[in-house]
Each structure stands twice: as C-alpha cells, then as structure tokens.
C-alpha cells in the first residue's frame, strides 16, 4: 500500500543529510514535489505512479546536487563550514544522545584548532632549527617520539574534519588506519604506565590520549550510529498538502 508520507520521507532523506541544501531549499523542493504530485493525481493517475512521475520531473538528489553544489560553493566560507557540521550532526542516530556528541565535537574542534597550528609551527621549527630543541635534551628523545608526533598531527586534522557517510573512500581508509594506531597507542600506554602517566605528568598525557581518541570516537559514532533514513522527524508535510491528493 502506497504511503505518501513515507515516500516523501524516503525522497527527502538524502537532501536532509547533505550539506548542499538548507532547510528552506528543502521546503521549497518538497512544496514543488507536492504540487507536481497533485497535478498528476488530479489527472486521475494512480497515487504511486503520480508520485514516481513527480520524482522524475523534479529530479533525484544526485541530479540536483550538481547545480546546488555550485550555489553552495559560492556562499561564504563560514556558511559552508556551518552547513557541513550541521549535516554531519544529522547523520547521528536519534538513539545516540545528541548532547554528548555535541560536547565531543566541540571538544575535538577546540583542541584541533589549538593543537594543529601548534604542531605545525613546532614541526617547522624543529626541522629548520633543530638546535633549539637539542640544547638541553638528548636528541633521541624527539626522534623516538616522532611517530607519536605524526599521530598527534593526524589526530588534530581528523578532529577538525567533519565526517560523512562511510563511503570506503581514501579518507575512510586513512581513518581506519588512524583509529587502529590511536587505539593501539592508548592501549599500550594504559597497559604499561597508566598510573605513571597520570601521576608524573599531572594528567597532561592522559588528556592528550583523550584528545587522540576524540577523532576516531566521533568517526565510529558516525559509521555505527547511522540513523534510519526514514525516521519520522524527516516528515514535515505542511497542513493541507494532501487535500487534493
């Protein structure tokens, strides 16, 4: 049995989850779809066929994305960043507590924005003026720590980048490797020196490890906490929309 509300929710889901469409644009497209649907329904076409014909006419998300993406790209950088994080949040299942995801995301953004430039500047300084770093310390100290340094750099980057649906792209593969490295590093540290780390470094190293875990944690929530695309909150049929249908 054809259900118009469900059909609209199914059609709308990829628009809602994409960063290229504002809620206002989606409302416009939905209104257009309903007008077209009613046009066919009034002609006496079966409801399901009328909806299919309306879909054909308005175009799928994949088809419309080309033009909408162009328009999205011409908006301000701030607006693009905002829409990207807003779309990312929508991927999260409603079962997952949104507030703690929000806290984790804000934390990862704050730490990423703080540490990424710091690591970049430090790395450049270390490469260009190694003497500054080697005056009081054994040179092997930094060489031994370089994998962790790289890992921290990657974490900073991944903590900043918003995630999308698991798509098996190169960025997803990098994230899998990165997550494995982070989990391995943290597990290794916890096994050998959990108390030493907390006591001797006053919790600083522990905080670093929490920070390392934030990016992979957010990514894993994205991949495994993906919401059902026909969640009822996607349906927002306006009053009177179905009157003539």
């Amino acid at each position, binding site marked *: 049995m054809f259900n118009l509300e469900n059909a609209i929710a199914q059609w709308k889901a990829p628009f809602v989850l994409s960063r290229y469409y504002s809620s*206002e*644009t989606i*409302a*416009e*497209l939905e*209104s*257009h779809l*309903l*007008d*077209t649907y009613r046009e066919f329904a009034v002609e006496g076409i079966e409801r399901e066929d009328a909806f299919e014909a309306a879909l054909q*006419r*308005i*175009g799928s998300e994949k*088809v*419309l994305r*080309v*033009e*909408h993406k*162009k*328009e999205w790209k*011409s908006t301000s950088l701030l607006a693009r960043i905002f829409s990207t994080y807003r779309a990312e949040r929508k991927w999260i299942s409603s079962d997952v507590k949104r507030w703690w995801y929000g806290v984790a995301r804000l934390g990862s953004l704050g730490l990423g924005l703080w540490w990424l430039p710091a690591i970049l500047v430090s790395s450049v300084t270390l490469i260009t003026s190694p003497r500054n770093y080697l005056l009081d310390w054994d040179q092997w100290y930094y060489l031994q720590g370089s994998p962790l340094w790289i890992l921290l750099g990657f974490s900073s980057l991944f903590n900043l980048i918003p995630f999308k649906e698991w798509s098996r792209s190169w960025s997803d593969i990098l994230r899998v490797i990165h997550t494995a490295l982070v989990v391995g590093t943290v597990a290794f540290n916890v096994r050998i020196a959990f108390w030493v780390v907390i006591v001797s470094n006053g919790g600083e190293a522990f905080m670093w490890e929490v920070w390392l875990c934030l990016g992979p944690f957010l990514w894993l929530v994205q991949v495994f906490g993906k919401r059902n695309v026909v969640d009822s909150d996607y349906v927002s049929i*306006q*009053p*009177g*929309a179905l*009157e003539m249908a």
Partner: protein
Amino acid sequence: MLNKDLMAATIRPAVLAVLAQRESYGYEIIKEVRVLSNEQVEWAEGALYPMLHRMERHGLIESYWRTADNGRKRKYYRLNNSGQKELDNQKAQWKVATALLNKVWGPEPCLT
C-alpha cells in the same frame, strides 16, 4: 528540444520575463516556461532553485514566504528594479543575436 547549453542560456531571461509579469513561485514559473515553450524546455525542475537563489543573491529578485488558503506555504519571488534592468539588458542582447542569425540563415522558405 533545446540542448543543454542553449537551455542554460535561455532559462535565465525566461525566468526574469515570467517574474516581470507577476510574482510567482518555483512550480508556477516552471509550468509557465514549459507551456510557453510548447514543452520544448525539459529539465530537472529542482535545478531551478539554485538559479533563483543566485539571482536573489545578486540582487535581481526578492523572495518571501506566503501561506495559501489551504495552509500550504510557498516561497514567492518578485522582480526588483535591478532585475528589470537585467531583463532589459538580456532582451537587447538576444535581439542582436536573433537578428544576426536571421540574417545569416535568411528567411524561412514559404511555399504559399
């Protein structure tokens, strides 16, 4: 049927011309363009909206939401002075282009 490039060039002045007659919303604009073109303009209708938003961003048209009697909300667009100037400019350019093509191709043969 118009090809993609020609349609892209035509649709903008066509939309401006429709809006010059009266304020309207996306579905109605498309419907009017389709009727006026004798169904020769066929495209993914949802692609109209980025163009409308672009024209709005460029200050050629303005928009507002209106609720119909049946409670349906629609976003209406209307032409402003800049849009009218742009339409006049487009008309002048198309006149030159069509005059050129008419001269090159000559008059249509008429057997009557």
